[in-house]
């Protein structure tokens, strides 16, 4: 779109047919509904040169017309008055939904894809007002902007809009500053990627205990009202405030992800952790309340404890099982956190992170052949971006580090019923103050 609109070069965009709705929609919301687009069958990935030549020689699966005829016509057929004007479309959102019975409104919310298909609490004016009373911020204050993908336009939202979604999720007013802080990150928990990623949210500081979040037994499971509904609110506000999360249109996750139901939302168990809290590592004081968000959550590796003889090999094996495109977050029960100190002498989180950085390795040949590394890291390497450019110079059988050190993180949570722990593949995005939203 940029090369066509900004540089004035006639362009045809090629896509696979599974993406017809989403790419036409993206072009439209970017003001280029008439962009010339031609489609070939899905997938391109993994097909041989001969098979892809058949795509070129074949027909557009959506129109039934020859692909190359459409390409050439797209570059040479006069525009015929289409897409040459400058028109503004105002897409306002009404504050209220037309009054109706509760039954009909529940149906409407579901049909409009405003829910996660679990029952919601209808956001009446009274309920939203009660939510708004839990912050000093004004209802019409802009909280932020959010979008499901890099290519879509960002939608804007106010404190009141966040409150509406918090009510729908069943959150209590005292949770609202945490929900507002999540909205203020601008990081969507309903990202549209074929990889089906989910978000993760970690709460730190006094707010955890003030609203009775659970950092102990079952913290990552459906056993606490605050954990459950704050996480659900993060998902609902993401899909509604960014303009939707609709499969085939604004959500393209091929398999989907159950983590998305509550975005892996939990507080760090600061009281039982042997290390400084996550938010303190990121420049906040222990007395500050914060929420930290991560993206790209799909992969999980787990084991029980750290064995005396082979714990290093076991942890390396877990790391080798992760896709190297997304870095590891060690989610440790307090028992295992202390075991890392006993076994490895990691008296600080940073020491453990150093060890992970040094030990998460694979051969350069294997690393660069991962599809996601090819898609997202190899181009950066060829453009000279470090550390990838240096790693690209390694011999195929040379063992190279899989991750950047600053991308590796450690969080402590759990009730010490045993030493089970896991590694989440997750990319840290940011930490936001909850206190700013009280």
């Amino acid at each position: 779109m940029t090369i066509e609109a900004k540089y004035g070069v006639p362009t045809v965009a090629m896509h696979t047919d599974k993406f017809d709705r989403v790419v036409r929609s993206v072009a439209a919301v970017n003001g280029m509904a008439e962009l010339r687009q031609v489609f070939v069958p899905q997938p391109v990935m993994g097909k041989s040169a001969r098979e892809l030549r058949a795509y070129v020689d074949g027909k557009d699966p959506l129109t039934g017309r020859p692909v190359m005829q459409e390409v050439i016509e797209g570059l040479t057929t006069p525009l015929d008055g289409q897409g040459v004007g400058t028109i503004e479309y105002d897409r306002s959102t009404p504050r209220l939904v037309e009054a109706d019975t509760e039954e009909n409104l529940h149906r409407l919310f579901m049909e409009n894809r405003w829910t996660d298909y679990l029952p919601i609490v209808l956001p009446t004016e009274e309920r939203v007002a009660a939510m708004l009373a839990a912050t000093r911020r004004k209802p019409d204050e802009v909280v932020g902007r959010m979008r499901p993908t890099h290519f879509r336009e960002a939608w804007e939202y106010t404190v009141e809009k966040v409150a509406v979604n918090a009510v729908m999720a069943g959150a209590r007013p005292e949770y609202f500053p945490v929900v507002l802080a999540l909205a203020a990150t601008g990081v969507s928990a309903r990202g549209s990627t074929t990889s089906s990623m989910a978000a993760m949210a970690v709460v730190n500081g006094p707010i955890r205990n003030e609203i009775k979040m659970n950092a102990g037994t079952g913290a990552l499971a459906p056993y606490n009202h605050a954990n459950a509904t704050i996480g659900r609110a993060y998902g609902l506000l993401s899909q509604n405030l960014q303009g939707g999360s609709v499969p085939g249109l604004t959500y393209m996750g091929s398999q989907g992800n159950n983590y998305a139901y509550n975005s892996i939302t939990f507080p760090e168990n600061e009281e039982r952790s042997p290390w400084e809290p996550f938010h303190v590592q990121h420049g906040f004081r222990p007395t500050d309340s914060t929420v930290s968000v991560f993206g790209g959550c799909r992969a999980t590796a787990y084991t029980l404890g750290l064995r005396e003889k082979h714990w290093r090999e076991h942890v390396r094996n877990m790391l080798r099982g992760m896709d190297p495109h997304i870095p590891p977050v060690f989610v440790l029960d307090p028992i295992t956190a202390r075991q890392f100190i006993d076994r490895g002498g990691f008296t600080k989180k940073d020491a453990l992170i150093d060890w992970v950085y040094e030990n998460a390795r694979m051969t350069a040949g294997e690393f660069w052949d991962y599809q996601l590394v090819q898609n997202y890291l190899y181009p950066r390497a060829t453009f000279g971006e470090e550390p990838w450019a240096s790693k690209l110079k390694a011999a195929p059988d040379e063992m190279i580090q899989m991750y950047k050190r600053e991308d590796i993180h450690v969080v402590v949570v759990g009730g010490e019923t045993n030493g089970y722990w896991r590694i989440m593949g997750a990319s840290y995005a940011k930490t936001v103050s909850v206190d700013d939203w009280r």
Partner: protein
Amino acid sequence: MSTSDRITVLNPMGFAPKVLEKPLAPRLSTLDGKTVYLVDCRFDDSDVFLKQMQAWFAEHLPGVRTVFKPISSVYLLDDPTTWEEIKAKGHAAIVGVGH
């Protein structure tokens, strides 16, 4: 349905930005004698696909000069260097493959 059964609730959707329609570039009268850039967005074997398209041009429209051009980095980033080159040296572009 009586009026008393009806309740009023708030709309949960955010606010969409205004859309400003952008004009498309004028189309070419012919591709013959022109330079067409085949822009590889470096995604899931799109390079293999575009090289097959380049071969098609060589066989069927030899009067068209094609340039295979991978973008400088990942598709998530703007690439003004490549766009400037195409603007300066090319007449048209085919960008692919977006999945």
